[in-house]
Structures are given as structure tokens and as C-alpha cells.
């Protein structure tokens, strides 16, 4: 028993002594750690000195036989305090530096810290419990037993050893600081080389695309649901309600945060809106995250082909397809915009309430016409002098295209439109081109469709167009049936040229 008690005291004294010396050399770090453990800010500077002194005194008390038991009690109290502080911090999820051994071993607290403290606590308890009567031989007895001369030499030797320890600690500290400086320099060099000092530039970081123009035919698709059953846009529309396509993914946290609301929307608006969640990735992951979220309308893409066709490349995004099969909204991105879109669509104030929309989406009371408003007057002579009036085009959808012969973007689109005229898609609208420039320049375009001249862009302005090429759809009753499409992609979309998405089927095992 006595050798074990003696050994336990030596271990405790060595650990506490090392911790005390290390803390004295790292008083700033010790103060920081004490503050992190919850010590009052005003007293941490004083405590950063007092604590290592107490540790050193405790370590020293453990060595002589007479004081060893008291030293064990002090060690027990110290270690119990440390363990309680670490346990409380861990329970709060804090992971700050322990600084238990100053700069010697800076590390965040963790389960290992508790285990180490627990072991030391057990040693202190062992000495305090079993060593009250006899804690074992004195660790200093050999020194006291020496003749005076040798005792002085031994004391000088111990002092030298202590000095060497101090030098070793300082050297270790300096080497760490040097390593820190080198690492900082390396980091700065890396940042300079990679240009990380300013935001990197990447094509895919473009703000979310609002998608195809309202009024364009929605791209048809056929995707498997979570059970592998094929579901198409046509089948969803056959339910007789507008369809909200909600683009999401199992690894999209903002999408997962919306799941409870999607469940509620699907339940509360079942009579007015069909919600389909279009996801991607592994079926199992989707099953785990989205099973039953939108009834059985959780559909899986092969990749992102449907989202790409709708230009909804960020998630969560949502778009409404009206009962007519035309897009009834731009793509709404993020939880707030999706909530608004769902509320508007479910209440019937959005464009999806009827075939081509309602005046409810009109944003500018005194500006260009909104969805469902009568189209502005459009009466001009054609290139051959024949009077042309948009009112005469009633009975069939008409796409009014705004054009400039000298506009390079129009020139690039011209070939596509000529091909479209030669082979129009099913249910394609008629085309009426409103252009500027000379009769010769416009004749040179080679369009089969009627072209009228609009010098000064007055007609374009009346329709809300802001440049060329742009277009707007007017329905068979002469009402505005789309937003203004700008750019080749959107003009072609209103003309009925939409991406063809190959059907995707998935076997369920």
C-alpha cells in the first residue's frame, strides 16, 4: 500500500507542478481559459496567477510525509473543481481551450479531458482516503538525509533542472509561435495566389433565373414517383387544378425546412391546387426526406432535366402551371417567395386561376397592360401597304414580336423564327412582327409572317416592351396572355418552342 501511495503522490505532484509552471508562463492564455469557464472577467487576471501558485503549493505539499495528506485533500478539491467546470462546459456544448497545461498542450476540452481529470481525481481520493495515517515515505527524505555539502549540491542540481525545464518550455513556446507565423504567411500566400481576397467569379453564381415567361407552354415531362409509377404534367393537369411544381432536393436544407409547410399546403389547398415536388438524387434519400410530403406527387428526375427546362436551377424554387398548361408564374425562389406564390395561387389572385390568367397580376395601374387586359390598339400598314389591325387576328392566339433589323440579337434569332414559320409546333400562335427600319431591310428578313413598321417604338412601348427582340402573347379574345418575353430563349418559348424532356422511368426493387 505504501509504495502505491508514494507513487500516487509523486504522479499528482508532477502533474500539478507541471500544470502550475506552464500556467505561470501562459498567464494570458490561462486568464482567457478561466473567463471561458465562467470566472468573473474582473478577477481572471488575479486568478491566472493564484491558480498556478495554488497548484505549485499543492504539488509541493504532496512531497513531504507530514504534509502529504493535506496536499492530497487540496489536490482532491482542485481536481474536483476542474472536473466540474469541464463537465459543465461540455454539457453546454462549449469546446473552448482547456489551457490545463498552458502552452504545453493547448487543446479544446472534450471527453478526454474528463477522463484524465477523473483518473487524477481517483489518485487524489486514494491518497486522501488511504493515506491519512501514513501517506508513505517522504519524497524529500533522501535530500534531508544528505550531509550539508551534498545537500547544497543536490539543491543546486534541482535548481538547474528547474531552470532547464523553464528553458525547454520557453523554447517550445517560441517554436509554436514560429509555426503559427509560418502558417499565417502560407495562408496569406495562398489567398494572394487564388485571389481569395476578393470574391471569386463563377458563371453558375448568377442570380436565380426567373424562368420562362408567364404564358409560355409549360414543358411536358414524365417522371417516376417514389413508388416508380410514371407521372406526367398532363396527368397532373388532368386533375383539373393549377399545378405547383416545387423544385427541391434531399440535400437542400432550405427545402427540408419547408417540408412541414408543404404538407400543410397539400392538405389545405387540395381542392384548388395540385402540388408536385420535383426532386433528384437517390430514391432512398428522397423516401426518407419527402415521403408523403405532397401526397404521392413526389417525382424524381434523372438529373436536373426538368428543373433545367423550367430554368429553375436553384432549390427551393416553385412555378405554377395553369390549367391550360401554360406557365402562370415566374419561378419563385426561397421560402418567402414560395409562400406568397402558394397563397396567391390558392386564393385565385394569381395568373393560374383561369386559362391565360386574370387581371390580378397587373402591377402597374397606369402602365402597360397586364395579364388579361385588352391588348393596346395595333393598326399599321404592312410592308406591302396593306392595312394590318391586331383586332382582325382574333380567334387565334397571336404572338406580337418586337424587332429591329440592325439588332444583332434579332439577327441571331431570325433563322430560328424562319424555321419556326416553316414547321410551327402544334397549337403554335400566329406571328405578327412589329419592326423598325426600312421596308427593304425588313423584307430582307424573309419572314412569311406579317411585318408592320413601328418607328419610334411607340407600339412596343404601349405593350410594355423595352427592347428587341421581345414578344408578347395576345389570346384569341384580344387579351394579353403573357408577360413580355425578352431575348431569344423567351421569345421562342412564347412561340411554343419548349425543351423536350425525355421520359424517365425507374425500376423499383
Amino acid at each position, binding site marked *: 500500500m505504501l509504495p502505491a501511495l508514494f507513487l500516487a503522490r509523486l504522479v499528482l505532484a508532477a502533474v500539478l507542478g507541471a500544470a502550475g509552471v506552464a500556467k505561470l508562463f501562459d498567464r494570458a492564455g490561462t486568464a482567457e481559459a478561466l473567463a471561458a469557464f465562467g470566472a468573473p472577467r474582473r478577477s481572471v487576471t488575479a486568478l491566472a496567477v493564484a491558480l498556478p501558485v495554488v497548484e505549485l503549493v499543492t504539488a509541493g505539499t504532496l512531497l513531504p510525509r507530514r504534509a502529504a495528506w493535506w496536499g492530497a485533500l487540496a489536490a482532491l478539491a482542485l481536481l474536483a473543481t476542474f472536473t466540474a467546470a469541464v463537465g459543465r462546459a461540455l454539457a453546454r456544448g462549449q469546446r473552448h481551450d482547456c489551457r490545463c497545461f498552458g502552452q504545453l498542450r493547448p487543446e479544446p476540452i472534450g471527453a478526454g479531458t474528463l477522463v484524465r481529470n477523473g483518473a487524477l481525481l481517483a489518485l487524489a481520493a486514494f491518497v486522501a482516503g488511504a493515506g491519512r495515517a501514513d501517506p508513505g515515505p517522504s519524497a524529500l527524505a533522501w535530500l534531508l538525509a544528505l550531509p550539508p555539502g551534498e545537500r547544497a549540491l543536490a539543491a543546486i542540481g534541482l535548481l538547474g533542472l528547474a531552470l532547464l525545464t523553464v528553458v525547454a518550455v520557453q523554447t517550445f513556446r517560441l517554436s509554436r509561435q514560429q509555426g503559427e507565423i509560418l502558417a499565417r504567411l502560407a495562408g496569406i500566400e495562398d489567398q494572394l495566389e487564388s485571389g481569395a481576397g476578393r470574391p471569386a467569379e463563377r458563371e453558375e453564381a448568377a442570380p436565380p433565373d426567373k424562368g420562362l415567361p408567364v404564358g409560355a407552354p409549360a414543358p411536358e415531362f414524365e417522371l417516376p414517383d417514389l413508388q416508380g409509377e410514371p407521372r406526367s404534367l398532363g396527368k397532373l393537369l388532368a386533375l383539373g387544378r393549377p399545378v405547383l411544381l416545387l423544385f427541391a432536393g434531399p440535400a437542400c436544407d432550405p427545402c427540408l425546412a419547408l417540408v412541414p409547410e408543404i404538407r400543410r399546403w397539400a392538405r389545405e389547398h387540395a381542392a384548388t391546387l395540385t402540388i408536385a415536388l420535383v426532386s433528384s438524387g437517390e430514391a432512398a434519400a428522397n423516401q426518407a426526406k419527402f415521403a408523403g410530403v405532397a401526397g404521392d406527387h413526389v417525382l424524381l428526375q434523372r438529373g436536373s432535366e426538368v428543373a433545367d427546362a423550367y430554368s429553375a436551377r436553384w432549390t427551393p424554387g416553385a412555378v405554377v402551371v395553369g390549367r391550360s398548361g401554360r406557365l402562370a408564374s415566374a419561378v419563385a425562389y426561397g421560402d418567402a417567395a414560395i409562400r406568397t406564390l402558394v397563397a396567391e395561387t390558392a386564393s385565385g389572385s394569381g395568373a393560374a386561376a383561369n386559362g391565360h390568367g386574370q387581371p390580378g397580376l397587373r402591377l402597374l395601374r397606369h402602365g402597360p397592360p397586364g395579364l388579361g387586359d385588352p391588348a393596346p390598339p395595333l393598326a399599321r400598314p404592312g410592308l406591302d401597304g396593306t392595312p394590318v389591325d391586331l383586332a382582325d387576328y382574333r380567334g387565334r392566339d397571336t404572338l406580337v414580336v418586337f424587332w*429591329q433589323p440592325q439588332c444583332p440579337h434579332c439577327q441571331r434569332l431570325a433563322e430560328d423564327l424562319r424555321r419556326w414559320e416553316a414547321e410551327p409546333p402544334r397549337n403554335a400562335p400566329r406571328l405578327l412582327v412589329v419592326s423598325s427600319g426600312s421596308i427593304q431591310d425588313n423584307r430582307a428578313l424573309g419572314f412569311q409572317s406579317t411585318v408592320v413598321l413601328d418607328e419610334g417604338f411607340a407600339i412596343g412601348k404601349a405593350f410594355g416592351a423595352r427592347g428587341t427582340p421581345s414578344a408578347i402573347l395576345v389570346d384569341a379574345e384580344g387579351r394579353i396572355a403573357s408577360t413580355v418575353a425578352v431575348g431569344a430563349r423567351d421569345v421562342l418559348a412564347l412561340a411554343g418552342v419548349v425543351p423536350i424532356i425525355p421520359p424517365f422511368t425507374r425500376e423499383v426493387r
Partner: protein
Amino acid sequence: MSPARHASIPQARTANLVVKPVAGEVLVYDLERHRAHNLTATAAAVWRHCDGRRTVPEIARAVAEDTGTSGDEQLVATALAQLARARLLEAPGAWAGVSRREALRAGLATAAAVPLVTTIVAPRAAQAQSLTCTVDATLCTGSCGAGNSCTGLSEACCAVVTGGTCCAVVT
């Protein structure tokens, strides 16, 4: 959950954010600040596990399972600090203070030096397309013909209207 515990557990922000996976990384677009952030696989895994219930050690273990790495807690702390600075965490102030210095002290020079979350911007031309203008705006000068095209408009040309010039943009 007590306020103290809540404050010490990171929670990912989800409001007004949209994401796009790109080649093993995740782009996050902040619809409020109109900034895009690129998350490395590690940062994305950390962000995904910030569910307001897991502590930092638990996140580290979950990240380790996801990525097959050692799931170092200091690396998680570094990622949390960078996510907080990008405003991708709720209560970011509680986490932004975990500094490179602490990671360096712990000997994680690589973690401290390598950005796990970077702010990125779209190329200039694409940015210009997102400009909005009214019918009577004069952002565009001149016409699109004869080499006098509208700078930054890759999809459409401005049109001269009565009383001014209007600018067409892809919105």
C-alpha cells in the same frame, strides 16, 4: 432547451436561401443580400448537420460519417466561423468569433488557411443582364447597330423610343 444551450448549438439559416449542388460542392445564394457562397464538401456537411440539436462534437461525428474523414472538431469550428461570417447560420455572432488564430494554435494550419466557404460573384456580363430599367430609362445610349451595342446586354438590344431610349434586359 435552455437559452444557454440554444446559444451553444449551431443552427443553419434556411430563410431566403436557395442552393445548387455543383461538382461535389454546394452553392448557396442569399436572396436577401444577393450574394452567392461556395461551400466545400466539408463546409456543406457541417452546414447540413447544423440542425439546432447537434452539438459541435456531434456535428464532427456526423461529418466524419458523411465525408469519411476524421471529423476533427476544430475543423468544424473553423467551418462554423466561416459559415457564420457568410451569414448562413442563425445567431452568427456566437460563431463568427472562432478565429483562424484558434485553429492555428491547435496546429490546424491547413484548416485555418484554406477557405471552406467562399463568396463568389457571377461574371460581369451576367451581372449586367440582371439590371432592371424602366421604359424611359436611359441606361442604354445609342443603338445596337453599327458597332454601337449596349454594353453588357447579351440577349437583347435597347430600343429608341419617343422621348428617349429604353433598355431591354433579361430579368
